[in-house]
């Protein structure tokens, strides 16, 4: 069959964009899981809150996209830290299942509250002026905002990887993931680190929410739809590894995009088919440690 380069690259771009969101979200999930041993089902809800925070900042306070890129993750991250201190902290030593149920319940409540006030339809959020328009790359037309999302997500993912794998703070984090008791006995305030880690993971999700607002509109259930795919990505990549979740996120976005071009009927299921295959062959995921 002949390949239509323009259509293929358009689908690849869509795949890359989705991959950016997958990577940012599964990265946050991996960071949270490593430190708190909690599978954060509220992740989709905080992603949505990030988008709404940007929307509120613009429509209530008149604060635009660029400050929102910092303020919204900070605000939602803070909300996450309050959640950790007031609720998640108390189930830290219990079975995974309790964390899963608690965060799932929280997600339903948060999404329910937003649906109550904003319905289910999308609210518009405009692309910032500086990123409007597009570029003709010869073989395809690239909307600048989409290119920005891909590059910015990649930068954030690599910065997070660097923070965790290459800095002293990251060494505390990795050590506390392995043996929190001993790290605390060295004089490090591990409970504070846990709270900050949850804030970081949630903040990354909120950042993805802000990035997504101009592309996907702002909807109470925007996270609920996305998070199902993200959990499949996490299962495929494995929970334990930071780089693994970044690479798997982008790779699966691209695979989805390619499937949309070559066999569109399977594009919504390809990630889940891959998940089943990976679970059959390597239940801990491609890069993960055994849970």
């Amino acid at each position, binding site marked *: 069959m002949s390949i239509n380069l323009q259509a293929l690259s358009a689908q690849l771009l869509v795949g890359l964009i989705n991959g950016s969101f997958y990577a940012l979200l599964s990265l946050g999930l991996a960071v949270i899981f490593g430190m708190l041993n909690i599978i954060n089902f509220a992740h989709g809800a905080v992603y949505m809150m990030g988008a709404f925070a940007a929307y509120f900042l613009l429509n209530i306070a008149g604060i635009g996209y660029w400050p929102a890129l910092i303020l919204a993750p900070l605000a939602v991250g803070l909300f996450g830290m309050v959640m950790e201190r007031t609720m998640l902290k108390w189930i830290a030593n219990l079975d995974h299942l309790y964390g899963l149920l608690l965060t799932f319940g929280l997600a339903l409540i948060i999404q329910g509250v937003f649906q109550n006030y904003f319905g289910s339809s999308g609210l518009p959020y405009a692309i910032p002026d500086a990123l409007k328009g597009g570029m003709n790359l010869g073989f395809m037309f690239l909307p600048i905002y989409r290119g920005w999302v891909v590059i910015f997500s990649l930068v954030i993912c690599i910065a997070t990887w660097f923070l965790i794998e290459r800095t002293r703070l990251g060494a505390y984090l990795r*050590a506390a993931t*392995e043996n929190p008791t001993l790290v605390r006995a*060295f*004089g490090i305030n591990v409970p504070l680190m846990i709270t900050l880690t949850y804030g970081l993971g949630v903040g990354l999700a909120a950042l993805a929410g802000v990035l997504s607002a101009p592309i996907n509109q702002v909807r109470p259930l925007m996270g609920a739809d996305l998070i199902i795919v993200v959990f499949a990505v996490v299962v495929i990549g494995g929970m334990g590894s930071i780089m693994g979740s970044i690479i798997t996120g982008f790779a699966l976005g691209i695979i989805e995009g390619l499937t949309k071009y070559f066999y569109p009927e399977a594009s919504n299921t390809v990630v889940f088919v891959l998940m089943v295959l990976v679970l059959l062959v390597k239940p801990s995921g491609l890069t993960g440690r055994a849970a």
Partner: protein
Amino acid sequence: MTETTMAAPAKTAATGNPVLTVENLEAWYGESHILHGINFNVKSGEVVTLLGRNGAGKTTTLKSIMGIIGKRTGSIKFEGNEIIKTSSDKIAKQGIAFCPEERGIFSSLDVRENLMLPPTIRPGGLSLDQIFELFPNLKERLNSQGTKLSGGEQQMLAIGRILRTGARFLMLDEPTEGLAPVIIQQIGHTIARLKSEGFTILLVEQNFRFAATVADRYYIVEHGKIIDGFANSELSANMDKLHTYLGV
């Protein structure tokens, strides 16, 4: 260093005042009551060894002092401050450093990161060069994954990393367990050296022959209590009793 100096380590006289005083310490792991009223003290500059059979409560005593046991009651005074209710990170900041029995080397950290992990809590810790002088092997392995080291090297790393922090009170839980004689000797030299530099050391040992080369005083732990105690100078007079206690 020769065997004679090993057997009689440089005696820097302990300066008298207890730096650590434990009174009526009781501790629990979940429902099981492990310590039933531990009483002992450690004076500044001393090496004190807790001896006893497996499961007697020696490790639990160290963990209670470090604040990493679920529930504990009684009194633990360190440098005059009551720390029985203090969280373990704050206890560490007061100047107690702990080297656990399982060594606690982190597999996701390389040797350098493991070595640099415990934060400096006060000035006066050993420099990296001084640590490499004690344990030259570590210098060769700085970029290896922590758990790729041999058992002996892991023990050196576990001891080395707490010397950096400036803590002057060290708790070492069975530092010789499972190690080759030549490495045990190296660790013995290290303890003697640390003592001569004024560190106070609380040691838990099963290896009585090793303990005899470094300790100033002994306490015998049995069924979660201290049942006896004597100085190194009274060792020969107490040998028979000791054999009964330890069942060796």
